């Protein structure tokens, strides 16, 4: 019993803080609570996409520091395509393709050319920043508007939960489904077993006939699609336009979310909600006029939370053993 508490104490504490803050900020008003929670879910969505990308890559043994760049460039390309074709679906697909292409690029650098994975990811980030800034044109809009809200009939009428979970836009629903899809793939399917083996002991996987390169390429490209969805979410669903550097560090926060979630999609969901919540509270504070003269301190909150979480959790969770090491047979 006490052992169980020691193992889960961080989660217990986190949830406690979570509940207390909700009660405090909402002052028991349902409308307020709903608004904060809905905002938390919205803020968590890009983190979920980013962290799921991270978990696909890292479970196969590749550090992806380039999620930020993948999301940024996907947001840009998705927006440009949706803006010129008028089709949001085309925009989302273009975003996914961009992320996938960058994932393939990362795989090329780190798997085929055996480059340093962190530097390869940094290349993605810098390239995404440069390309999106260079080709960015002010004043473009989405002819179709943002992605539409979809309400899931009777479920949406449930108190609190209905407003929060069942009246959302399409990519938000997709993110919630993908959490379970990625979990199922990683922990139930043959591909997941292969992925985890490659991420732990690539040479062991290779000796039973699993191609390390194939697993890593596939996972990096699939992860790229997920990051691409995260980018498309930002420009096509959350904001409805593209801004320079609009990811604003979310790709890096997503990595912290992934570590905090212990490389497990379900843990990632919890961690993403926590981070989303930190951002939602930040918005709430601004609305209430607290710290109105010093918005910079509110602006720091997500990053400080991220540092605290990293300092508190890394070392407790065990990352895939082969992470960061290029693998070659000879």
């Amino acid at each position, binding site marked *: 019993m006490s052992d169980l508490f020691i193992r889960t104490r961080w989660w217990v504490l986190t949830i406690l803080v979570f509940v207390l803050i909700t009660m405090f900020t909402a002052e028991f008003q349902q409308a307020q609570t709903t608004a904060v929670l809905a905002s938390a879910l919205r803020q968590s969505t890009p983190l979920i996409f980013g962290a799921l990308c991270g978990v696909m890559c890292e479970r196969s043994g590749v550090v992806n520091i380039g999620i930020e760049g993948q999301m940024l460039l996907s947001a840009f390309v998705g927006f440009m395509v949706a803006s010129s074709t008028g089709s949001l679906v085309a925009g989302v697909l273009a975003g996914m393709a961009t992320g996938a292409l960058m994932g393939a690029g990362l795989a090329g*650098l780190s798997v085929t050319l055996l480059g340093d994975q962190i530097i390869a990811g940094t290349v993605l980030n*810098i390239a995404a*920043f440069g390309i999106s800034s260079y080709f960015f044109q002010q004043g473009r809009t989405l002819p179709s508007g943002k992605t539409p809200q979809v309400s899931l009939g009777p479920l949406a009428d449930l108190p609190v939960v209905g407003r929060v979970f069942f009246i959302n836009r399409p990519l938000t629903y997709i993110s919630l489904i993908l959490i379970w899809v990625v979990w199922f793939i990683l922990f139930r399917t043959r591909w997941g077993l292969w992925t985890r083996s490659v991420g732990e002991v690539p040479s062991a996987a290779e000796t039973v006939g699993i191609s390390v390169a194939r697993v890593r390429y596939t996972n990096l490209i699939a992860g790229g699609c997920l990051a691409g969805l995260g980018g498309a979410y930002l420009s096509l669903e959350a904001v409805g336009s593209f801004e320079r550097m609009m990811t604003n560090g979310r790709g890096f926060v997503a990595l912290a979310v992934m570590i905090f979630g212990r490389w497990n999609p379900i843990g990632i969901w919890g961690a993403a909600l926590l981070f989303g919540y930190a951002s939602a509270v930040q918005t709430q504070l601004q609305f209430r006029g607290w710290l109105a003269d010093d918005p910079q301190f509110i602006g720091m909150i997500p990053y400080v939370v991220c540092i605290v979480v990293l300092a508190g959790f890394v070392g407790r969770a065990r990352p895939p053993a082969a992470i960061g090491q290029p693998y070659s047979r000879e």
Partner: protein
Amino acid sequence: MRWLKPVAVPLIAVGLALGIGAIILALSGANPIEAYSALIDGSLSSQKTIGRTLEKATPLIMGGLAVAFAFRAGLFNIGGQGQLVIGGIFAAAVGFGFEGLPWIIHAPLALAVGALAGAAWGSIAGVLKATRGAHEVITTIMLNFVALNLTDWLASNPWKDEGILSRTPAVEESAVIPQWGALPTGFLVAVAASIGCWYLLERTTLGFEIRSVGLNGDAARYAGISVKRIVVATMAISGFLAGAGGAIETQGVIGRYEPGFNAGLGFNGITIALLARNNPIGVIPAALLIGAMEAGGSMMQFNADVSPEITDIIEALMLLFVATPIVVRWFFSRQDVAEVSITSGWGSS
């Protein structure tokens, strides 16, 4: 041909990046030759533009040194940006906060305080890594965002200038780092810092410890080196270099701290460090190259109507090619290649 070996990879990377940059320029409807000659025009054509290049290169040398130095201990400091703005604003605070000090005291004092502030900021990531195992790549990035918010707050509250802009007052005349004709004194400080770093790494026991930790942390621990101490010390020195870069920018170029202070320096620092193959002396030419591109960027926009962000793309391409082992492998034997993998995964601490 022996002398060519260390510079071959960077030269090829630069050549390839400029070539592909030309293709991108052509594809986006610009004339690459016009654009590149405008770039040269704006950076190397006159005493004034050369001075501007040196001025741009100065913080780049410091940023590149910060990254290269940390790399030698196996640490990836992406936080140069944050350490730089912290250094910049603290130097500004000393610069405008004291009146009547003689130049010989005031300018070095402001520079030292800026550098030490950067060192303190950098060592946060070092301490988190050494004691908690938090990976420096993420903590330094997060600390960049925190630093930007913090300096923004400082510049709009306690250290705010009169007027509506969020910036500090101009530093006192006695805190300004002067020009020697076209030659900024700050550039000389940066060159001295490069030489100092080289000496520290290659000739001192601390440098031996830093290099040992970077090459094989387990063996370093076996040899009695306190890896945690080295991690903290290295991040502090790295932050010191970046903070000094910020101070020079404040005292020698801008004259105060203001928003938008040298954005993007952290990433340039990575490119420069890798172009220099993490050699402190090599950082100087690498920073001059990037500095020339920055200095010439506005001329490119003016003369050839090309968005200066193309230089970001070219820099990303340089980083790509210089970090790609296959390029290295054309020129080096296997054993040299073994050094290329510099960073490590989350598990190491």
